């Protein structure tokens, strides 16, 4: 097992009186492909959003290489530039072309040269098969194409970890495959990935570790082969049987 990159320590999150995350402790190690599964409302997405501070946790800490990411803009920005995020709704910048989407943050956040940013953009757009579309605006692309661009855009930052928040949930069935294909390819490059997903087959085949969340708790955290074939927690069993039946 590689070194620990992100440690989540006793993380809790409430929206008003409703506690959505209850005492979450997870270590994320270098090279891991972690899939987080669970029914809607179990806190998966909130956990992911708490990791990169899009949601402020109620208590607990997120450590990055052993150092706490404090609630200070400088800490948050630095951390986020190392931990990319791919959203369910893509969130490409609508006012920019595909190429500009990929070049903006390396230029403005990492301050790399224009040439360097361009090279990165082309390299990663080629990886996801979107290089011919550099001049297109997001509104001119299909959902699957948008998501592939969004993945390339995140890769342009050379992130240490990439978070995926239900990356295929907003896609038509035939587009799901193209995005999962890109993610499978990425998984072979050694990039650390945390993926919130409802794609059970993908979680089973691609992840190195699967986390099942239930009502704000980590109910089970195991290797996918174990979790999918021999779940220990009755809630996991129930959840999986519903999925496998449907």
């Amino acid at each position, binding site marked *: 097992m590689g070194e620990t990159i992100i440690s989540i320590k006793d993380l809790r999150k409430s929206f008003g009186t409703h506690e959505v995350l209850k005492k979450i402790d997870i270590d994320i190690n270098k090279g891991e492909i972690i899939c987080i599964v669970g029914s809607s409302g179990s806190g998966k997405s909130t956990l992911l959003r708490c990791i990169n501070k899009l949601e402020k946790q109620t208590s607990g800490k997120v450590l990055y290489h052993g150092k706490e990411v404090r609630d200070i803009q400088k800490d948050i920005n630095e951390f986020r530039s190392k931990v990319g995020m791919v959203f369910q709704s893509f969130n490409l*910048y609508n006012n920019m072309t595909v190429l500009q989407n990929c070049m903006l943050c390396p230029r403005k956040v990492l301050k790399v040269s224009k040439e360097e940013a361009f090279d990165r953009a082309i390299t990663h757009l080629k990886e996801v098969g979107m290089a*011919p579309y*550099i001049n297109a605006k997001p509104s001119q692309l299909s959902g699957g194409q948008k998501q592939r661009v969004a993945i390339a855009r995140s890769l342009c930052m050379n992130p240490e970890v990439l978070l995926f928040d239900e990356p295929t949930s907003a896609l038509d069935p035939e587009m799901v495959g193209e995005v999962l294909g890109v993610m499978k390819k990425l998984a072979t490059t050694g990039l650390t990935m945390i993926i919130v997903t409802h794609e059970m087959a993908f979680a089973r085949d691609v992840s190195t570790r699967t986390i099942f969340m239930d009502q704000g708790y980590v109910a089970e955290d195991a290797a996918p082969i174990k979790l999918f074939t021999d779940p220990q927690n009755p809630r996991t069993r129930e959840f999986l049987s519903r999925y496998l039946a449907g």
Partner: protein
Amino acid sequence: MENPGNSLEWMLFLTEKYLKMFLQGTWLTLYIAVIGTVLGFILGYIIGIIQDMKINSGDFFPKRILVSFLKLVATAYVEIFRDTPMIVQAMIIYYGIRQAGVELTPVVAGILVTVLNTGAYMAETVRGGIGSIDLGQREGAWAMGMSPMQTMFYVVLPQAFQNIIPEMANTFLTNLKMTSVLNVIAVQELFMAAKTVGGNYYKYFESYLVIAVIYFVLCFLFNKLFGFMEEKMKGKTDYALAVEYMDNQ
């Protein structure tokens, strides 16, 4: 024209006789409206952005104090200027500044009033424009490590700007007409010109009708111009595939 009879003849007579005065009035009206609106827009954007600022609990203490203070000032400013008539603002600012011992020409005071008034309305428009942009756009930038200010300038404002162009055009047209209230602080704009000309022959109806036509023509033309510009700014709807990168498909 000699011995004008009906109203139309009077209008032509007055226009010919006082052409220079009407032209000067038109010029000053345009001058104040344009400068006042442009500066007002800038002020409005600044205020709108301040109102949208967020504070993190872990932020450096002086920064938190400063941002809270700026937000308070911004909110107070917007409320005060939106809740009082421009004509009253003009009087208070003009006489207030003179009373404080600073010599201010009516034109400068007029521009100042227009800027402050426009700024307050624009701040609300900008805030609405920012609010109309999907939160996902911001999250997409934040999640890549962009600061809130960078996010604002590169991602949110360009989109908000596009959305509020019609409202900005509207504000300019309003200002073009609202400069007429500045006659109360003796700015020699169009309304003042009509008042003066009308008084010379006791032909107020005809004199004001002349400037009504001028206001109408100005607003009509600007309206057409803004419509044309808006169309232009929509940009291309198609794009070219970059064939040089097609090989690995």
